[in-house]
């Protein structure tokens, strides 16, 4: 047992010693005038004592008093029993989001993280136990309270980044359930959001990679600093810097003025503003003040969005996964955030490049959708506008598309691919973000198996990617798309243990019921978890021991406060009792 407020004993131990001495020392004899001593003289030789101490009478009362003071002091010193039961426990969390793939002069970020994690393990005390977690979109527990360092090193070396965006905001709530009071948490990440996340004060954040990450959205450049966001806003109209000094304001998603902002016009560049944000809201809108708005087109308003995935349902969509995997091979530094809604899967880059791919979920709401049609031949679409074409260098005239859905291009669609039945794909800028929407089922067509399909992917990516990245993928580059030749039956294991057979039918998307709390397993791969309870969303989650959770967190501080008050009252009571005893003897 250890005590968090051990300084209490510096007061309690002298108090205990003083109490014992107080009771053991012989008090000064009280003086009494008696009529005569003739009877006392017969007894006095038997009772005279010159010792400076005397046994306390009654002795058990002294013991009870000492015990009471000891217990009160222990309560006030905030004892920690957990330290006795468990040795030092270190939790190592490695960020495995896509940004950790970034290669820097010192090596890739994930390699740096692995090296640091190995050093943490090597320099830990002998009895230390370790828990290894990886955090990206989900939290994965690889080892829980493991003491075998060799096996732990193997696990650390096997950590690889995933092609998903990180969401570190779920970590505190998840770790609160497994972390003991004596645990140490090491978080190795390059996520710029770490600086503004509400981490506990005793967490050790180890930054991996560059200090800053630039975000550029429509002329807005934000730099993540250690305490907030420090950005430069450059207002452009059709790519031309706006030459007239204007004033700007920042509003949140509810159109409320974001007042915790420092906006300073730069003297050397009147069209730029330096913005320092402390605790930025999830969605921030940079706009001109009403008196300046008339000079700009509305589309050039600047938005900064901190995307928070709010997945509701999970789709087993292997083809689309591979499609995205191919995209990520082309653009390895893209951080992808999946945002799945009832209507569509939106894959959108978070900041680095304005990449957005919108894929409607097939037959999600069948009664309200247009019935699928069978197209013998997918005709090349008619492209409009001055954007890059989707069918450039592609001969898809003879492609067979068995099932498709007629999509309705929105107003922002600038180019589309259509047949005689209607529009099957379109592209455009949705709120300034380049977006491509496909309307045909890849699985039920031979298009992915045709040599032209990678070119279609290239065209899409080159449309989506900014010009500076287009050079990284040229026609003729190898794009590996290993699609399944045919749908395979899948076995779904529910958290309750029940198994269900999943047939990937004509549609590419099969929705599984994930209303139960727990992890779902499809075939041999943990795919999904309960999305309603993020703390339960684990991939490859073993069965950990039940962590110590204090049911009533207010009880401990309340008990400490009560114990401290009782200690004070006890001391005052002892002093008062002594004073009364002394006074009564004087009166006697």
């Amino acid at each position, binding site marked *: 047992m250890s005590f968090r407020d051990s300084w209490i004993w510096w007061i309690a131990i002298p108090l205990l010693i003083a109490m014992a001495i107080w009771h053991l020392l*012989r*008090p*000064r*004899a*009280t*003086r*009494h*005038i*008696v*009529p*005569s*001593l*003739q*009877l*006392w*003289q*017969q*007894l*006095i030789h*038997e*009772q*005279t*004592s010159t010792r400076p101490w*005397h046994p306390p*009478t009654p002795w058990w009362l002294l013991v009870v008093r000492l015990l009471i003071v000891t217990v009160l002091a222990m309560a006030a010193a905030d004892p920690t029993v957990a330290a006795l039961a468990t040795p030092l426990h270190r939790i190592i969390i490695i960020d495995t989001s896509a940004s950790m793939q970034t290669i820097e002069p010192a090596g890739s970020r994930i390699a740096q993280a692995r090296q640091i994690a190995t050093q943490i393990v090597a320099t830990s005390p002998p009895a230390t136990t370790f828990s290894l977690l990886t955090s990206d979109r989900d939290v994965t527990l690889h080892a829980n309270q493991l003491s075998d360092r060799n096996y732990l090193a193997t696990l650390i070396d096997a950590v690889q980044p995933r092609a998903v965006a990180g969401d570190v905001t779920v970590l505190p709530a998840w770790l609160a359930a497994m972390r003991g009071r004596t645990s140490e948490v090491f978080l190795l990440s390059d996520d710029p959001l770490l600086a503004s996340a509400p981490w506990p004060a005793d967490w050790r954040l180890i930054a991996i990679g560059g200090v800053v990450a630039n975000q550029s959205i429509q002329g807005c450049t934000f730099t993540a600093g250690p305490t907030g966001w420090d950005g430069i806003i450059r207002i452009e109209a059709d790519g031309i810097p706006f030459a007239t000094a204007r004033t700007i304001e920042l509003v949140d998603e509810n159109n409320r003025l974001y007042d915790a902002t420092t906006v300073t016009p730069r003297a050397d560049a009147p069209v730029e503003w330096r913005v320092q944000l402390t605790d930025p809201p999830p969605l921030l809108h940079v706009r001109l003040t009403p008196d300046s708005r008339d000079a700009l087109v509305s589309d050039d308003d600047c938005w900064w969005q901190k995307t928070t995935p709010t997945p509701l349902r999970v789709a087993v969509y292997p083809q689309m996964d591979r499609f995205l995997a191919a995209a990520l091979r082309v653009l390895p530094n893209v951080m992808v955030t999946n945002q799945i809604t009832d209507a569509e899967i939106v894959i959108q880059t978070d900041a680095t490049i304005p990449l957005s791919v919108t894929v409607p979920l097939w037959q999600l709401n069948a009664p309200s959708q247009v019935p699928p049609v069978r197209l013998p031949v997918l005709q090349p679409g008619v492209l409009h506008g001055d954007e890059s074409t989707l069918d450039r260098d592609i001969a898809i005239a003879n492609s067979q598309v068995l099932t498709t859905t007629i999509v309705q291009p929105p107003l922002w669609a600038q180019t589309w691919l259509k047949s005689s039945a209607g529009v099957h794909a379109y592209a455009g800028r949705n709120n300034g973000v380049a977006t491509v929407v496909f309307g045909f089922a890849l699985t039920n067509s031979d298009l992915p198996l045709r040599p032209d399909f990678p070119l279609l992917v290239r065209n899409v990516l080159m449309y989506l990617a900014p010009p500076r990245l287009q050079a990284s993928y040229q026609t003729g580059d190898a794009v590996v798309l290993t699609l399944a030749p045919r749908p395979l039956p899948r076995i779904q294991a529910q958290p309750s243990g029940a198994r269900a057979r999943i047939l990937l039918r004509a549609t590419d998307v099969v929705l599984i019921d994930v209303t139960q709390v727990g992890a779902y397993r499809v075939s041999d791969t943990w795919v999904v978890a309960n999305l309603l309870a993020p703390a339960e969303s684990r991939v490859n989650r073993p069965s950990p021991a039940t962590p110590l959770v204090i049911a009533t967190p207010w009880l401990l501080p309340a008990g400490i406060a009560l114990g401290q008050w009782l200690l004070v009252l006890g001391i005052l009571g002892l002093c008062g009792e002594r004073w009364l005893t002394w006074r009564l003897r004087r009166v*006697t």
Partner: protein
Amino acid sequence: MAQLLSAAESAWLTRMQLPWQGLSPHGLYAVRAARQGGRSNEPELLRPYQMGDDVRRVDWAATQRLQHAMVRQPLPQSQGRMRIVLDASPSMRLDPAKWHQALRIVAALGVVATSNGDSVQLWHEHPSPPYHRTDAWLALCDGIYTTAPITHQFAMPTHVPQTQLAVWCSDLWHADWALQLVQFATTTQTGLVIQLLSAAEIVPPLYGDVTLIDSETQQEYTMTVDAALQSRYQAAFTTWQHAIRHECRRLGLGYLFVATEADLATALHEVLL
């Protein structure tokens, strides 16, 4: 001026009488029996036989009943003389209630004597003149109660003429109490010793380490009083009181123990007729 006796107590005392001779439990018993319907209408005193008594006065029935030679003697007429010796030592003045009770007893005895036409003399440091009037006696007692100084050490009057009845009111907290009893017995024909003690003297409320100071000699003793010592003190007190009673009986003196808290009627029940 303090009122030692109430009007009711004074009225009650005027109806009482004092036993002038042969003051003993047996004598009192016989006198009471005579007053309640003896063989004679005259009050008589039944007392132990003494050398020189007329054998014709021997009450053979009482002798057989009491297993002691008893003689019947008519109660003397009034005009007797009583001397009250009051102990005013520091031990008597230590407890104000004790001093007050002592003066009340002294005043009550004087009231009984003066109301029956007898004279009473108070010996307090110095002998007072004989008092025949009740009011003057009460004034004397009141004055002593309020203004009398504390004597450092009690001294039994010696070389004084014998009186018919003498009463010594004291707590007997004197180391030479046995000698004083002998001296007191020589000054009177009939003697009565009233030992007045308070409850704190019988069961001292002492515990723990105490320093006891003798009220008369100012001698100090430090000791630790616990339950065992209290028990031994009680045993010593009983032995001491028993020795006083035995010595009084040996000297032919009456002995009466009065507690400070006792009321007057209870305290003098065995004394007054």
